[in-house]
């Protein structure tokens, strides 16, 4: 980028001072509207009853740590990826494996199901995101039809199709996010603003929505306009890496899970953090978060092998789920909200309901 012309009198010092005063002003503006806490507003509503949530299915077959999973829109199929380089498509009702692909790299950190259910995308240490059309013929070699779509200069941490099979959004250890055309592999838009690895992204839940949120090792969560590439809002209250970001179902807020052992809720219209989900007894990082259908429950997977279920409005924990024998790396609620799936470093996936 060519050096921009400087206004008269601008130096590093004046810009730095301006930057500091703008940051202070931003905090001041946000604080003015901080008239109440979310859990105070929620005091009047009934507390939630006892939860009975159990493992209903265990999916065994990966030879190493499960790193990522995604649900198909048909609410029964699941794609999962692992450190061993395998990507498996499962029927969660029967626990049968329908497809398996061996990637040319290990640590496949990201996988996603296409909206049509006819393809999956995945990537990791290969720095790429590749799309595999799923064949009805189980004998067909899926790897033969592989299409390389995204190219980053460091590992792929997360990927997601947009509302169609035609575009994919990716985040990477190279500090950027990017939007790609699947057919041509062309880069449509890139998103710069994080100062360290981006670990997670989530698209806003709306047909017309054109924003997404990303979180990374710079402890920041950024909201982006997909068309302009502009970073429209930024939140920096976590004390360590943000491992996962997920939109609240209405699209007005998003949750984060972090290595600082807390999950937090940020409201986009209030432009600030509105809740922290933490306990003194929880000292391990939260790797993954997802909301139940109504947004009342937040499921969070932790590095201490547990899943904590939080009352989003009241800020209290309503259940702890035990079962995994190693870190929980990914948690996703099914598209119709009837169950959620967790993946773990114990090589298995579990369906809970």
């Amino acid at each position, binding site marked *: *980028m060519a*050096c*921009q012309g*400087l206004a008269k009198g*601008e*130096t*590093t010092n004046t*810009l*730095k001072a*301006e*930057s500091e005063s*703008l*940051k202070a*002003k*931003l905090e001041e503006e*946000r604080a003015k*509207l*901080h*008239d*109440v*806490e979310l859990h105070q*507003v*929620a005091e009047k*509503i009934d507390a*939630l009853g006892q939860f009975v*949530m159990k493992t*209903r299915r265990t999916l065994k077959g990966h030879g190493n740590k499960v790193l990522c999973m995604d649900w198909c829109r048909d609410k029964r199929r699941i794609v999962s990826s692992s450190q061993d380089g395998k990507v498996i498509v499962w029927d*969660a*009702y*029967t626990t049968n494996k329908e497809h398996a692909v061996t990637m040319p790299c290990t640590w496949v950190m990201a996988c996603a199901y296409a909206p049509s259910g006819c393809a999956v995308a995945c990537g990791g240490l290969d720095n790429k995101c590749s799309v595999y059309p799923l064949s009805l013929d189980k004998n067909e070699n899926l790897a033969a039809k592989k299409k390389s779509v995204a190219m980053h200069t460091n590992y792929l941490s997360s990927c997601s199709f947009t509302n169609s099979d035609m575009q994919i959004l990716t985040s990477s250890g190279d500090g950027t996010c990017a939007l790609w055309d699947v057919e041509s592999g062309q880069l449509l838009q890139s998103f710069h603003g994080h100062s360290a690895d981006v670990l997670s992204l989530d698209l806003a839940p709306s047909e017309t929505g054109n924003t997404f949120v990303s979180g990374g090792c710079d402890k920041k969560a950024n909201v982006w306009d997909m068309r302009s590439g*502009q970073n*429209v*809002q*930024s939140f920096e209250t976590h004390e360590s890496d943000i491992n996962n970001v997920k939109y*609240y*179902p209405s699209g*007005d*807020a998003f949750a984060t899970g972090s290595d600082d052992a807390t999950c937090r809720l940020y*409201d986009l*219209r*209030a*432009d*600030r953090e*509105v809740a922290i989900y933490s306990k003194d007894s929880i000292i391990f990082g939260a790797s993954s978060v997802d909301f*139940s*259908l*109504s*947004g*009342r*429950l937040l499921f969070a997977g932790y590095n201490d092998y547990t899943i904590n279920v939080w009352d*989003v*409005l009241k800020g209290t924990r309503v259940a702890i789920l035990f079962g995994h024998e190693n870190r929980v790396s990914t948690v996703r*609620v099914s598209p*119709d*909200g*009837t*169950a*959620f799936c967790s993946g773990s470093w114990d090589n298995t996936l579990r*369906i809970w*309901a």
Partner: protein
Amino acid sequence: MSSNSNLSTMKRTVEQLKLEASVDRIKVSQAAADLQQYCLQNASKDALLVGVPAASNPFREPRSCALL
């Protein structure tokens, strides 16, 4: 050269902060009320929250009763 790129980075940071500072914001009380309303309005459809009869949840029903 490096001082020029530091300057342009700083300029970009300042522009970014100006953009963020100019965002329209609402009060937390309003935002919280809206979040709460969304939860309550959709609570009845949330199977993990209110539970559904075991027969209608494909994951809860006994495996031997396979749907054809």
